[in-house]
C-alpha cells in the first residue's frame, strides 16, 4: 500500500500508531518503548505535539530522531537529544524522580487489567518460551504518571490470565494499585489495531470506547482472549488524516532507507 494521495486506504497497524500518537500532548514527557510506541511518539512530535519530550531508556532525553531507531540506543537518538545521561541517572533522577508523565509500553501478553507479561510463556523456572524480560518496564509501570499500552490484537496476546506479571497494571482491578502503595495512575489507555480502550473508573477493566473505522464489535471480541466489555456510548475513531498518514509513511520510508544505507 503506497501512501501518496490515497489517504482513505490505511492498514490497521497504521491506524493503531496514529490513534496512539493522538493521545500524546505537547507538554508530555514520554518514556518511549521501541517498536509501535516509538513510531507513535514520533508521529505525535511531527504533527500536533512538536514540543513533546521523548526519553529513551538509553539515557537520551528530549530526542527528535529524523528516522526511527532500530534499538533504544541508536546513535540518532543521542545526536538529536537535548542531553544524554548515564543509565543509572536515567532510572534514578528521571524515571524514579517522577519526571515522566507517560510511559508507553508494548506487551507480549496483556490481561484486561493492563498487567503485562514480556518475561516467559509457561512456568518461569521451566519456560515454554523465554521472552526478553522486563528491561525498564517494571519501574516504568509504577513510576510514570500514566501508562499507555499499544499492541495488535490476538487471542494469544490478549489473554484471560498472563503467565507472569512482568509489570503491574491494575492487578486484580479496583484499588489494587493503591493497596500496594503505588501512587501513579497506571494503565489509562490501550490502543490496539482495532479499537481504543480505557479502564472502567471503578473496576479498572479495559473497556472498548472507540472502534477504528470499519471495525465491528465481533472482530474485537474474536481477537481477544477475555470477554470484551464495550462502553455504552461507543465512538468511531476518526480515520487518519492525510497529514498523519503522510507523516507516518514518510517516517517509515526514511527509516527504511537509512537502515539500508548504513549497510
Amino acid at each position, binding site marked *: 500500500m503506497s501512501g501518496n494521495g490515497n489517504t482513505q486506504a490505511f492498514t490497521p497497524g497504521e491506524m493503531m500508531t496514529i490513534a496512539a500518537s493522538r493521545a500524546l500532548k505537547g507538554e508530555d514527557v514520554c518514556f518511549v518503548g*521501541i517498536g509501535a510506541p516509538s513510531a507513535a511518539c514520533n508521529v505525535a512530535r511531527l504533527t500536533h505535539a512538536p514540543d513533546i519530550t521523548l526519553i529513551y*531508556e*538509553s*539515557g*537520551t532525553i528530549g530526542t527528535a530522531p529524523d528516522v526511527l*531507531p*532500530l*534499538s*533504544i*540506543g*541508536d*546513535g540518532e*537518538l*543521542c545526536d538529536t537529544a537535548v542531553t*544524554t545521561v*548515564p*543509565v*543509572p541517572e*536515567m*532510572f*534514578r533522577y528521571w*524515571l*524514579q524522580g517522577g519526571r515522566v508523565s507517560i510511559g508507553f509500553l508494548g506487551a507480549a501478553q496483556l490481561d484486561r487489567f493492563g498487567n503485562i507479561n514480556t*518475561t516467559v510463556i509457561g512456568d*518461569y*523456572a521451566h*519456560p*515454554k*518460551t*523465554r*521472552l*526478553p*524480560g*522486563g*528491561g*525498564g*518496564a*517494571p*519501574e516504568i*509501570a*509504577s*513510576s510514570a504518571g500514566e501508562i499507555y499500552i499499544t499492541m495488535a490484537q490476538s487471542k494469544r496476546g490478549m489473554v484471560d490470565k498472563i503467565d*507472569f*506479571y*512482568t*509489570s*503491574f497494571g491494575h*492487578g486484580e482491578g479496583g484499588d*489494587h*494499585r493503591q493497596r*500496594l*502503595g*503505588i501512587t501513579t495512575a497506571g494503565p489509562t489507555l490501550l490502543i490496539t489495531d482495532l479499537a481504543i480502550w480505557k479502564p472502567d473508573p471503578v473496576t479498572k477493566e479495559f473497556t472498548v470506547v472507540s472502534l477504528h473505522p470499519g471495525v465491528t464489535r465481533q472482530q474485537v471480541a474474536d481477537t481477544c482472549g477475555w470477554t470484551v466489555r464495550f462502553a455504552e456510548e461507543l465512538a468511531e475513531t476518526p480515520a487518519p488524516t492525510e497529514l498523519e498518514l503522510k507523516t507516518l509513511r514518510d517516517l517509515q520510508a526514511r527509516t527504511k532507507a537509512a*537502515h539500508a*544505507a*548504513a*549497510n
Partner: protein
Amino acid sequence: MAMFMPLAQAVSENLKNGDSAAFEGFTHLIPTAAAHEAIRQGFRDLTLIRMTPDLIYDQMIGMGMVRKMVFSYVGNPGVGLLRRARDAIENGYPRDLEIEEHSHAGMANAYEAGAAGLPFAAFRGYLGAELARVTPTIKSVTCPFTGEVLAAVPALRPDVSFIHAQKADRKGNVLVEGIVGVQKEAVLAAKRAVVTVEEVVDDFDDLHPNLCVLPSWTITAIAVVPGGAHPSYAHGHYVRDNAAYVAWDEIAADRERFAAWMQENVIEATPEDFAGRVKHLRKAA
C-alpha cells in the same frame, strides 16, 4: 595504572575460568572484540553480568562457556529474542544456564552501588512485579524516616569488566562519549577492568572538563582494537550495523549454522578483523 597490551594478553591476564564478568555496553560501544577473544581462549563456567545481554552473550552461551547469567533484558535489540540463550534456558543446550533476573532499574542501581562501594542499593522498584518473587537477591529495606518499603538489591562487583571506548590518551586515561550506559559504573565496580579503544591520542588536554573520562589508575589493561564494537557502533566513528543484528536472528536459530558461523567468524578470526568489518559503516558516522 592502565597498561597498553595486545587484546589476547589483556583477556588472558584478566579473565579466569569461573569468574564473574561484565561485558557492558548499552546498545552502544559493545565490547564484541573482547568477547570474541574470550571465546577463542575458551573460558568455562563464567557468570556473565549485563543489563542487556545481546549477540555476544548469545555467542558465549551457545559456546557453552556460561554457568550463570545476571541480566535485565535478554533480547536482540530491535529484532527479537536471543535464540542461543533461549535454547540454554528452555532446553539446557549446550548446558544448563542459571539465571538471576532483574529490571533495568535494579541492575543500574546495583552497578551504581558497586561503583560507590556500598553493599546494596535501595530504590522504588518491583512494585507488584513478579521478579521480586522469583529472584532471591531482590529484598527490601524500610526508610527510617517515612516507613516506606523500598526494593533492595546487592551491589554488583564483577571480578572483571570489559568495555569498549572511543579513545585513550598515552597515559591510559579513557574517554567514553555518546550513550555512556553503565560503563563507568561497570569499570568502577569491578576488581579489574579491561578497555578496548578505537584509537590512542596524545593527550586529552582539549577535552571539555565534564566528559566521561576514566582515569588511567581505574583501569587494568587497554587494547587498541579499531572497530571492536561491531556490529554495535562507536559514536563519532562508525554507525550501527543493523543488518548484522537482523541476520543474527537466523544464524542463531539453528545450532549447526551457529557453530559454523562461530568457527568462521570468531574462532578463525582475529581482533584485527574488526577494522574491516566497520569500514563501510564509517562514512555514515
